């Protein structure tokens, strides 16, 4: 009898705690929305999102510059990371001798855990000077090195281990017999990878890429350290950018005396949260659909 009571009690307690994740999501959305209400009431949403006039002291809070900063940096990171990661995962999962694979898998795991600030330090010490002294002159422009490209490179390198780790795992789940079926028809390894293995692994690979993308998208510190943080919409990859997370990190907590300032920054945080939510929902929908059409 006592055992059953205990069982029921523990169940109720666990249920309460199991509600925490859902509760936190709601609390975050509601909390951030609540705090950004003042600015949403004072300004139309279109102005907040699409005006690039950011003059807090004059009461102008256009976030467009920062949104573009985030998009530029994420796009560059994705453009660098996706092809490199896919090719590297294919090499490690399909071509590399087993020894090499056994050696590199834990290494990739280790690297996935390195904190983003450390990537930022590397960016400041290596990538920024490299762009300033070599890459930008090569392209015929002058740049401080603190720019979209630097941030993109640092982010790309940061998400490498994450994407590669998951992609390799996914490629390994494709049964060997499927490869054999294609090879037995006289297909080359590459034809097998391209037409059969990748196709079979596509849902998982998409998930890996989305994972990496959402990591890059919300990354704060590494970007903050190398993006330059100039409030202007970048025109080339050699221009500085000021992504949303960097804006929040730099300004939040300082400027609480300026009216509406914190409200605008929390709106930025809310925007980041909503994008993550949408990406999650969209990724799920895509995965379901891809799974259905492939399997």
């Amino acid at each position, binding site marked *: 009898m006592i055992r059953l009571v205990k069982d029921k009690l523990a169940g109720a307690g666990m249920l309460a705690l199991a509600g925490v994740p859902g509760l936190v999501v709601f609390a975050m959305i509601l909390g951030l929305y609540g705090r950004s209400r003042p600015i949403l009431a004072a300004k139309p949403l279109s102005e907040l999102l699409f005006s690039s006039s950011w003059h807090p002291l004059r009461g102008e809070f256009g976030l467009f510059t920062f949104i573009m900063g985030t998009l530029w940096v994420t796009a560059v990171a994705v453009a660098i990371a996706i092809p490199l990661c896919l090719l590297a995962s294919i090499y490690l999962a399909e071509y590399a001798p*087993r020894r090499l694979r056994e050696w590199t898998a834990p290494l990739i795991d280790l690297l996935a855990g390195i904190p983003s600030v450390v990537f930022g330090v590397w960016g400041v010490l290596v990538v920024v000077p490299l762009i300033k002294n070599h890459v930008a002159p090569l392209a015929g422009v002058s740049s401080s090195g603190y720019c979209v490209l630097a941030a993109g490179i640092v982010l790309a390198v940061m998400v490498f281990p994450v994407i590669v780790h998951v992609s390799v795992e996914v490629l390994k789940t494709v*049964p060997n017999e499927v490869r054999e*079926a*294609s090879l*037995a*028809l*006289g297909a080359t390894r590459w034809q097998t990878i391209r*037409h059969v293995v990748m*196709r079979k692994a596509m849902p998982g690979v998409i998930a890996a890429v989305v994972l990496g993308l959402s990591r890059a998208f919300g990354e704060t510190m590494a970007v903050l350290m190398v993006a330059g943080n100039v409030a202007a919409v970048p025109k080339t990859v050699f221009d500085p950018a000021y992504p949303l997370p960097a804006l929040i990190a730099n300004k939040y907590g300082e400027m609480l005396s300026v009216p509406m300032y914190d409200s605008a920054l929390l709106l930025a945080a809310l925007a980041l949260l909503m994008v993550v939510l949408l990406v999650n929902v969209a990724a799920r929908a895509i995965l379901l659909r891809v799974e259905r059409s492939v399997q």
Partner: protein
Amino acid sequence: MRGAMDHDPPIRVKNLNIYYGREHALKNISVDIPGRTITAIIGPSGCGKTTLLKSFNRLVDLADGVAVSGEVLVDGENIYAPGVDVTRVRKKMGLLSQKPYPLPMSIYNNVAYGPRIHGTKKRGELDRIVERRLRESGLWDEVRDRLHAPASKLSLGQQQRLCLARGLAVEPEIILCDEPTSALDPVSSRRIEERFRELKSSYTIVVVTHILRQAKRLADYVIFLYLGELVEHGPAGKIFEEPEQAMTREYVKGSIS
């Protein structure tokens, strides 16, 4: 060309040794596989049947730490000689595995996959190939109105016949089968066997099987392996009725399994 080959055995194995790391999987095998017949490789599980089969199209290469010595001559050419184009060797042979593994695409594309990777792009030609091969494998009537449905929607038996059609589409001379009915129900198995009997007038078929009755039903020629060694080989009648080796006698009587 083809006429000359009919006299020579299409596959000739000479002193073949295969190691997986330290394990000596095949020990000095020498045997000829006769053309346009069904050859059954029999023996208890773990005796190297599948390894021998996969050595014919060099799929053994895919295993980690594998080492091969000796020769396998396909149409008189040693496929383990340096510089051999493995894809060309493999194109000469269709493969049916234990479980059907359709490629992750439609029924049509499964069959068209082989011809496509070998350079056939024209739609009309592909259509003809797909129909012909599906007919040959006895699947056409069941799938003709849903060629573009995913292959995974077919029943297991249908999938196995699709895999057969897929293999035939690259115009092989030889069909290699690794216990092709072990995952199928009796009716589907029977259908596959019927196909083999029909196809043997134009193809050399090699079947790995651990089902003695299947070997008796199908085989013209039998190879008996035990623990990586070739114990005996010869025409089916001889192996099943009056084997020379005591070991073979025990096995075909069902004492060893």
